[in-house]
């Protein structure tokens, strides 16, 4: 009991932090390994639909992204609320898709050109009219491999 009382008055010894950098570096390397760089700032609201059968995109370097959805509030004054198509960092029209695909294809190796994949990130409330037009433009640009981006879930809520 006497021992117990004796220690109570003393100040707490400072925590040994010499291993802190090791821990933080470990977390850092973990994040460096599992994450990928953010490439584009999405300027449209995209709530991609749920699905159960989605496959994981394995080679991100082969993929080009097309976003379709309502512009974010900050852009609504300029672009309105109708669904817009975003490629790279700008809003584009259907007519620009062919150029965009050609440009993206140019950046790939000769061997990878046939494996090019277009990932369509489309808001779930978008009307199919614009989606179909984009698909037709992709066919004209002969970018035939596409992926409808979705969130993988165990069960989907059927309409």
């Amino acid at each position, binding site marked *: 009991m006497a021992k117990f009382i004796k220690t109570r008055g003393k100040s707490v010894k400072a925590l040994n932090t010499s291993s802190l950098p090791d821990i933080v570096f470990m977390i850092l390397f973990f994040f460096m390994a599992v994450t990928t760089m953010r490439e584009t700032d999405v300027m449209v609201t995209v709530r991609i639909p749920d699905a*159960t059968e989605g496959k994981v995109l394995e080679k991100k370097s082969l993929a080009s992204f097309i976003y379709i959805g309502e512009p974010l509030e900050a852009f609504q004054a300029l672009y309105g609320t109708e669904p817009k198509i975003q490629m790279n960092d700008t809003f584009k029209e259907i007519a620009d898709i062919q150029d965009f695909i050609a440009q993206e294809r140019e950046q790939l190796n000769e061997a990878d050109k046939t494996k090019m994949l277009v990932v369509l990130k489309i808001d779930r409330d978008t009307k199919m009219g614009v989606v179909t037009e984009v698909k037709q433009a992709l066919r004209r640009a002969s970018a035939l491999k596409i992926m409808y981006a979705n969130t993988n879930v165990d069960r989907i809520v059927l309409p």
Partner: protein
Amino acid sequence: MADIAFLLLIFFLAATTMDSDTGLMRQLPAIPDPNVPQDINKINDRNILEVKVNKDNLLLVEGQLTEFSQLREIAHDFILNANDEPNMPEKEIINIAYFGDVPVTKAVISLQNDIGTKYGVYIAVQNELIAARTELRDELSRREFGVPYERLDEDRKGAVDDYIKVPISEAEPKRIGE
């Protein structure tokens, strides 16, 4: 030391994303060459399952109004055609590695949509159709190889894919009333 590490850590947290992209892989049909005469190899009507989503997001299977929850089962039964009924898809005997001479269904699923259809509904339908096909492949794989389809090697997967091919075609868009 720790300060620098924290700084880097925070930078990576802000500049990177963790989400891996998932999605439904599809192959679009090539634009038909206008110079090459198209031999219109009409697919027999019994081999086509016509799935349509109209502008009110209602599902029509072979022209009949159908609940979304029934679609998977309908597609499943259609592809399987277990009793070889005359109004269901034909089967053709084809030699496939690992299986030998087997009756392969000629079923095709045709998916049509309207301009006003919601994308989310369209994807839900696509998902159900792909799920029906995957279910059948899985059943076959379990029966023949005793393992789920997902765990087959590439060769066997290819053989199963050849057995249950069932293309899901996206029809040429129609513009009505424009």
